[in-house]
């Protein structure tokens, strides 16, 4: 087996909340995630999983410690640079799909790529169709996003997360709102992405079935990592 490349690394990350009282939400978080790894973060509600994910996502910048993505130091970068890093390197999937309701599914998938501006409009359109096909919803491409079922919307959201071929895909409860059939589809897609396309997946989840099928489970409790590789 080849030596694994570190894609994401944190160094002693700590985070405080000040409302309503000062509270240490994350404490001394240091861990590594490797390329093409499918990692889930598990733990009880309020243990800081989501808070940590938002820091990893580069959207939250109010923390102590250091964050590295693909060898680049993220901590201390300006907001506009962070936006560009997110655009290129990170794809998001949220619990509540968060599609833009006025746009067609295709347009929703295309928007991050159009923002990146690396490919022409036609090329982006072509790629978006490919991603939708990968998730089995190519036939819904031209429908307005709001007209689709929850499971279909979530798949569109995953297609959108994939469009710029990001190194890392981050998910916050990606199956939280889905039935078992759709959960199965999402899970298979994630496994395929990490195995075949070499993309790293970091997912926060409550779903133990979902977690058990990932490569590694990081368990958190009270703002700390209590197990770097919990077996379920």
């Amino acid at each position, binding site marked *: 087996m080849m030596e694994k490349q570190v894609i994401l690394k944190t160094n002693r990350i700590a985070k405080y909340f000040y409302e309503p009282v000062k509270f240490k939400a994350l404490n001394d978080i240091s861990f590594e995630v490797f390329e093409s790894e499918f990692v889930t973060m598990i733990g009880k509600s309020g243990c800081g999983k*989501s808070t940590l994910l*938002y820091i990893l*996502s580069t*959207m*939250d910048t109010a923390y102590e410690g250091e964050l590295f993505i693909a060898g680049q130091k993220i901590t201390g970068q300006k*907001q*506009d640079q962070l*936006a*560009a*890093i*997110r*655009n*290129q390197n990170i794809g*998001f999937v*949220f619990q509540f799909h*968060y*599609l*833009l*309701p*006025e*746009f067609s599914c295709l*347009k929703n998938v295309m*928007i*991050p790529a*159009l*923002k*990146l*501006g690396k490919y022409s*409009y036609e090329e982006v359109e072509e790629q978006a169709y490919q991603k939708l096909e990968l998730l089995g919803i190519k036939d819904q491409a031209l429908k307005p996003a709001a007209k689709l079922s929850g499971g279909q919307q979530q798949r569109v959201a995953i297609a*959108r997360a994939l469009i710029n071929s990001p190194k890392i895909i981050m998910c*916050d409860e990606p199956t939280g709102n889905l039935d078992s059939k759709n959960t199965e589809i999402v899970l298979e897609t994630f496994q395929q992405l990490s195995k075949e396309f070499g993309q790293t997946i970091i997912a926060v989840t409550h779903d133990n079935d979902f977690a058990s099928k990932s490569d590694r489970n990081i368990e958190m409790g009270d703002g700390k990592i209590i197990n770097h590789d919990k077996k379920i």
Partner: protein
Amino acid sequence: MKLNVNSDIALTHLLTRKKQTLIAAMGVTVGIGIFIFMISLVVGFNRYSDEALFKAAPHLRIYKDDILSQPLIPQSNSGYTAVIVNPKITNLSNALINPEKIMADLIKQEDVVTVAPQVSVNLFYNNGTSQINGIASGVNILEANAMFNIQSTMLAGDVRNLVATPNGILIGVGIAKKLNIQLHDNINVTSSVGVVKVMKVEGIFKTSNSNIDLTKSYVNLAVSQQLLHQSSSYVTDILVNIKDPNEAPVFSKRLKTLTIYKVEDWQAANEQTMSSKKTRGVMFGAISLAILLVAAFGIYNIINMTIKEKLNDIAILKATGFSGKDVINIFIKETLIMGFIGTLIGLLLAAGLIKVVSGIYIGGDREYFPIGFELSIFIAGAIIGMLVTLGAGYIPALNAAKIDPIEIFRK
């Protein structure tokens, strides 16, 4: 469609909520329409009142000012103040010395259109026992006509007849009525130095000022000199018209170096007109700006509402790599499109209003409402409209850029 992605999003937002877009645009339309209309009204009316003014007054008038007596011995010691008890006006005559030379110098000046000599005579108009006092202007009638467009005010007769009739006179309609005089009748005039002449009425004019109609008359320059017992070189005023009447104060300063006599611009001679002009400008400007402000609040409101409804969208855009600048860009574009549509229709609205109002009959010598199309006002209105909407959209857009996506996702 191959729009830039920000424009694409902005346009989609607008198109999916056509009604709100249109309402916001309509606010701008009314604001801009009324703004341009009001300003055109003021400009039209000012022009009309200026025109009325210039039918009786030149842009610049050069005359000999009254001089008060000075101490005989010039004051040499600054420690003392020379005092003259009961100073007197020392002018022996109001005549300008060597007026031909002054006029020749004036006409050489750049931008001077017409230069005309004038002799003012205080006199009485008599017919039988009725008598009116007034002022006759002794002029070269063709020059005076070029300056004041007297012909346009004539009710009867023709100014050119004065050239052929040395003892002709053009009188105001008030004088004609009071003395019961018709065209081609004779009229007795008695000057302030006691010269009596019988004149032939060659024309009756009516200006917009009834006081002028009741006192003023035009006679040939030679007649006016005779009425004052003066020689043919006697001239009391030199009247000057220039290309742009608004430049008159600048001109009067320049001409002061050219002559020892007093140079008075029409603005200084008509302070009251100028102050009422300013009042009008401020009043109408304030009203129309207030309307524009209301329109701006309309835009502000709608953009603000859009942003409130689109918090999720903004959060997801930011998560997928749109920067704060992009968010501002999107909402500014939305504002500008609304502002552009509104302004465009506003220009049409203003044009329509002006067209309708310019057809209203008001009587008098102007006949129709004094309002006209002014390209510069339309351009200014369009620029102000776009600036106001830009300002109204920028504030909420700035707030949208500051939205923290994490706060939205946590909910």
